[in-house]
């Protein structure tokens, strides 16, 4: 088993190295997140009450779109240069390799996004007491988004216009995460039920996605590369 873990770690390191050297790709999703959330106060106006009302939704939709934007980088370059083909020939289960890839991808896209969100939340006049929930919900939610998104990303490899297709496929699947994520933040901002319930549901989604997404996307990869 040490061999499998070693291989998974090597895939993880490889992804981090590659993404690090192509930092522009990592940055685009993050910059997108910042710009979109900044546009809202400009459009709505400086009225704190109105901003506070839309803040949870805006932050979550922006995070979701930023994640969708980054999905194309998950497999595309490895597909083009043939590394993915090689990964299919690995002596270890493909789903384990895919899991490592997704984990690395999240560390470079979802994690910075969650860590950056408090700054943007202040800009949207989100009450201080809700910021902890915001970060928590994004930490639980964004890995789920990346995991779910990996399946259509794998399925559309080699399809012309795959990028748009991924968005179309993935956005409907994201709705439950969006609903409970935004609701959790709204709740702790004092607009609804307690946020713990929503966060637990987000946790449940994450557990579900963890169990099926690596397996489903590796099956999708085999189909795409046949």
């Amino acid at each position: 088993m040490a061999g499998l873990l070693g291989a998974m770690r090597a895939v993880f390191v490889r992804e981090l190295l590659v993404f690090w050297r192509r930092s522009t790709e990592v940055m685009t999703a993050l910059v997108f997140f910042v710009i979109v959330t900044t546009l809202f106060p400009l459009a709505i106006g400086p009225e704190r009450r109105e901003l506070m009302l839309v803040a949870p939704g805006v932050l979550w939709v922006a995070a979701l779109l930023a994640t969708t934007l980054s999905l194309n980088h998950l497999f595309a370059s490895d597909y083009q240069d043939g590394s993915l083909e090689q990964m299919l020939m690995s002596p270890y289960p493909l789903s384990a390799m895919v899991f490592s890839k997704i984990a690395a991808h999240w560390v470079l896209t979802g994690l910075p996004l969650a860590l950056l969100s408090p700054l943007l939340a202040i800009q949207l006049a989100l009450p201080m007491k809700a910021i902890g929930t915001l970060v928590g919900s994004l930490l639980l939610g964004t890995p789920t988004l990346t995991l779910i998104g990996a399946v259509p990303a794998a399925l559309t490899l080699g399809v012309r216009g795959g990028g748009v297709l991924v968005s179309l496929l993935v956005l409907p699947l994201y709705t439950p995460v969006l609903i409970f994520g935004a609701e959790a933040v709204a709740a702790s901002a004092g607009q609804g039920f307690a946020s713990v319930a929503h966060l637990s549901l987000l946790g449940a989604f994450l557990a579900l996605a963890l169990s099926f997404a690596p397996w489903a996307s590796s099956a999708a990869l085999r189909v795409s590369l046949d």
Partner: protein
Amino acid sequence: MRGDRTLFAGLSLDLAPGEALHVRGPNGLGKTTLLRALCGLSRPMRGEIRWRGQKVSDLGEEFTAEVAYVGHLNGIQGDLTASENLRLTSQIFTRRKQQGVSAGEALERVGLRAQADRPARHLSQGQKRRLALARLLVLRRPLWVLDEPFTALDMASVASLSCLIGEHMATGGLALIVSHQAFDLPGIRDFELAHYCKARK
């Protein structure tokens, strides 16, 4: 079968340890498809492929752990250096008992020592090809499946690759090679794919 087109039928071949097969045939006949099916990347419509007497589809990763495949695509990540590419390959793809030579040694063998620390995207076509072939040494697998391994290689590299394949056979390894290029390898068997193809429209 590729798409809805049957490429070949009634095909049967076997390979013993220490043997190499040179698959020949004109363009578009399905040589690559055959190789991809043989190494488990795609499934044949009918028929079966066996490895040490067992069906490949049942063996799964036990089979892929025995194959090294170098396809049309080099499988090199351009943003990593040549030696990083190889080192990670060996970490990701080898089980402990299969550890081949080290990344540095493999680079030496294919004549890329000087390029070890350059990003792979700066390498020339031929150098990239050699880097892809260096994987064979790092992995130490019994079955080599090589799709046009000689493309973009210079004369000296062609000779040294033939030599490598020869050494591989001498240690009981198997090799399946698709190539249009003439190369010198004693004891290699020719396999003409055209015999098994349906009359084409």
